[in-house]
């Protein structure tokens, strides 16, 4: 059976007509590109830092087993526990079992893309657990019953007015429509949840193998409260988040903050190693790390491996003309923008996700800004090759390419066809030299005139002695 492909084109059409979304995206375009630019102009060695960052990530990926083992050892030595989940179902089951073992019913959770990836929220809901997202953006998303549309700003697509309405409805309150009032209101509501929670779930930006530490960065300080106050702390992270040493983590954090929000460093950097020790003022009684593989080790062995360098900074989407036109939801799954277009086919299968790698002009902006130098357009092209190999397109696409190549490989025939095409298109273009409607190319001519040929192929003309 053929999987129903993602309907990117329909989603994109809807997104382009969504005025609220378009206003929100204009803010990303203007704001986030400029702030990154400024932050990078201030750091002349940024490109050098990128090289180092890419090398750190490559090194870890080449020796992942060693660092996994070392990390697990150090976490255990510090009194915590490490679990490895092979796939999403196993990861969900592990987290649910830990919550049950610790009789945790009320759970706070800070931002974690891998939790989205494994579908943890739905699993917790089915298990009847109370979950409160503590990242402001994620909290808004939770109230709206939606999905994040951006790595760093999960709620970028939601305008302030809508946030106010959501708060008014869910908190039975009447906050002012100002950013300050809304943040204050969310803080107040979240504070109560922090204190009441039995368990906190966080993601991780980096896992330090040498020390067994988990590093999370936020601009709201919410990860600190999510993990520090409840009895149980569960970290859920992809296995690729490992770095050898603390120093490496800090190199990558510098790249991350500048690329993501244009900051030198995120406002809060939390480093946690194991549960509460004798004499600690706070911290959880139990500390567990769930490392999620979910196909990552399979990716390691493929030519898509460089995508595992990704540090989830969001710069590729902030600079992607396609993302900026249609937003995150149109991509149809958890990961969006250029990095999402590379990752999603791996998770959902290329038969289903092939429209994503096709939705690119290969303009190369993403690769240009990626702080760990992931060749994103190149990886998208690999997916197109994969799609072609598995014949996901209808026969007409393949036949078209086949006929074109057959002719292009026969230069004499090709010259003749060029002459014919030139003559007939020129006739269609008339005196004004442009075609308003061209059957078979309506994708072009619905919004653009099609320039008609000037007439007479160049290669043939030149070789007949014509010179201008």
């Amino acid at each position, binding site marked *: 059976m053929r999987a129903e492909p993602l309907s990117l084109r329909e989603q994109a059409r809807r997104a382009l007509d969504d005025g609220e979304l378009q206003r929100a995206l204009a803010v990303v375009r203007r704001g986030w590109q400029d702030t990154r630019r400024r932050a990078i102009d201030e750091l002349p060695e940024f490109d050098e830092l990128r090289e180092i960052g890419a090398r750190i990530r490559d090194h870890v990926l080449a020796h992942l087993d060693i660092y996994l083992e070392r990390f697990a050892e150090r976490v255990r030595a510090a009194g915590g526990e490490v679990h490895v989940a092979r796939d999403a179902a196993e990861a969900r089951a592990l987290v649910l079992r830990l919550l049950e073992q610790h009789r945790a019913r009320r759970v706070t959770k800070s931002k974690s893309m891998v939790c989205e990836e494994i579908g943890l929220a739905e699993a917790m809901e089915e298990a009847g657990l109370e979950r409160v997202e503590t990242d402001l953006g994620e909290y808004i998303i939770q109230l709206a019953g939606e999905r994040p549309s951006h790595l760093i700003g999960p709620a970028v697509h939601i305008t302030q007015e809508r946030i106010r309405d959501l708060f008014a409805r869910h908190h039975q309150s009447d906050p002012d429509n100002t950013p300050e009032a809304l943040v204050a209101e969310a803080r107040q509501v979240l504070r109560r949840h922090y204190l009441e929670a039995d368990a906190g779930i966080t993601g991780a930006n980096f896992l330090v193998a040498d020390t067994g530490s988990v590093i999370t960065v936020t601009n709201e300080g919410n990860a600190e409260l999510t993990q520090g106050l409840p009895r149980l702390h569960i970290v859920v992270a992809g296995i690729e988040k490992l770095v050898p040493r603390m120093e490496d983590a800090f190199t990558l954090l510098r790249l991350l903050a500048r690329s993501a929000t244009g900051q030198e460093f995120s406002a809060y950097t939390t480093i946690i190693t194991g549960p509460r020790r004798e004499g600690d003022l706070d911290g959880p009684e139990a500390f567990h790390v769930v490392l999620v593989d979910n196909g990552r080790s399979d990716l390691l062995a493929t030519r898509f491996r460089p995508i595992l360098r990704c540090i989830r900074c969001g710069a590729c989407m902030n600079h992607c003309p396609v993302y900026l036109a249609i937003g995150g939801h149109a991509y149809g799954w958890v990961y969006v923008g250029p990095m999402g277009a590379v990752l999603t086919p791996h998770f959902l299968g290329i038969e289903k996700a092939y429209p994503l790698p096709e939705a690119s*002009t290969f303009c190369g902006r993403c*690769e240009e800004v990626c702080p760990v130098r992931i060749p994103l357009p190149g990886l998208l*092209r690999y997916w197109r090759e994969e799609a072609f190999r598995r014949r996901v397109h209808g026969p007409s696409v393949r036949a078209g390419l086949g006929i074109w190549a057959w002719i292009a490989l026969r230069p004499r025939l090709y010259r003749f066809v060029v002459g014919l095409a030139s003559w007939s298109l020129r006739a269609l273009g008339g005196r004004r030299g442009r075609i308003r409607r061209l059957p078979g190319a309506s994708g072009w001519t619905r919004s653009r005139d099609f320039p008609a040929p000037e007439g007479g192929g*160049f290669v043939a003309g030149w070789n007949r002695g014509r010179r201008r």
Partner: protein
Amino acid sequence: MARPEVALFATCLVDLFRPTIGYAAAQLIADCGAEVVVPPGQTCCGQPAYNSGDRERAQRLARQNIELLEPFDRVVVPSGSCAGMIRVHYPALFADQPELAERARALSLRVEELSCFLCERGARVTVSLPAPLRATYHDSCSGLRELGIKEQPRRLLAQVGGLELVEMRECESCCGFGGTFCVKYPEISTRMVDEKVARIRESGAELVLAGDLGCLMNIAGRLRRSGSGVEVRHYAEVLAGRLDRPPIAGAG
């Protein structure tokens, strides 16, 4: 001493749609003191197959072009994306065939985009426009990011008498052409070219220039449809003084 032979790889779009660019390029190369050859066996660099994931057909076309072009000292291409295809992607295409990879690499060292070639040769531009004109330059993606083409065309255009070059905002952002992208995702493509057209209009330019015919056709098509009178040309037409030809997609 015999004049060095330079092969002009015109690209399939120039061949079919706009021979003027080919003649202009040939004239500019000849003005540098080279003998221009237009190998009659040339068709297409293979991007349509390569970018559609059809690696095998892309390889076959690449092979045809390697055989066609390797006898020449230099190969000049009036397109950043096709020059990039030959220079950057041909060697990668044959990663698993060492012999062809080596030939592709050897060829890639001799292939140059037109404006880069002219700058390298220290070409002097002597044309003057009949009347002053204000132009803006769009940086096509592949040329800019694969080959580092940025200053070269601007440096050449700055020598044209009567041409004032103004920079539009976001001159480095994609116009939305993207080969088959523009017909597979026409709505997104249209949004992107609309952004480009808006930047062009606010620059106050009467003429848009770029180095890739695909982008130029896309921009010209949208400008005409939206009723703008801004003209669109390949930079080589201006450098060769060929403003007597109607612009791409005709005059406003």
